[in-house]
């Protein structure tokens, strides 16, 4: 119960859009900013703010990359982010 409270009250993961972004990156490993905009259906500024929070917590890495379609902003999950999602899933499994 303590672990559930700890994870759900974690300010980084308490927001559904932020958690959804992290889960999406857990599945995809990396996504472009425009992919994330479509997936999360958030305005640019909100998504940018959520990515900043996740990056400051060390869960993701955001970088510019040159692709065939031009320069793109890419968000990529870090090892810490992957571990956090795994712990989150374990806790959820126990809870269910």
């Amino acid at each position: 119960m303590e672990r559930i409270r700890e994870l759900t009250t974690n300010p980084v993961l308490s927001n559904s859009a932020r958690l959804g972004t992290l889960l999406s990156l857990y599945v995809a490993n990396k996504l472009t900013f425009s992919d994330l905009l479509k997936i999360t259906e958030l305005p640019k500024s909100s998504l940018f703010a959520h990515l900043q929070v996740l990056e400051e917590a060390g869960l993701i890495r955001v970088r510019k990359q040159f692709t065939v379609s031009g320069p793109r902003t890419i968000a990529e999950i870090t090892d810490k982010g992957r571990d956090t999602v795994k712990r989150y899933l374990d806790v959820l499994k126990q809870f269910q």
Partner: protein
Amino acid sequence: MKSVEEAKEIARRATRRIIRKTLGKYYLLWSTYPLVIGVLYILTPPSLLENPLPYILTLIPYLTLTSYFFMDMGKKLRRYKELIGWKSRRRVSLLIVLMLAGFVMLVLGYEPGFNYLLILGLSLYTSTVDYYIYYTASFARFRYYDLLTMVTFSISMFVWFLPLPYSEAPYLVMSVVWIFSGYSSLSEVIEDV
């Protein structure tokens, strides 16, 4: 708990995009195969037309790229299934074993004319490939163009391997349909296609 469900819904949309992108690339890749085989047929000297080696060699890059696309997507799909707590690995493994068994029967039974091994191999191979497309596409919302690709693939395979008239026509139709399906799939997920 509501926020977890909302978060999972976002991850589901991400998974859909990944799968649709993979299907789009797969459809576009194989849409070129009939054209490549056609060009190869025209360029091959008549004395070598019976030699299957060039056609088998042509398959290698197609199968390599297909394996790469689907292995990469498979990894991502497995992580998504972890999120939603779905265990169906055994079913996919069985499907791949049946697909390979069908392919082996197809190769062993290949000779001009009808024979039961060839028909069994064709049926097993086409049905498992079709089911795999259906299974994969259903994670990304099954579209009418997924159905079109399945139908044109099955018809082309049967017409190509069995001594039926106008065997080239379905392959050309397949090529056009797969280009359309590939374009439609990618335009769902990529901007400015």
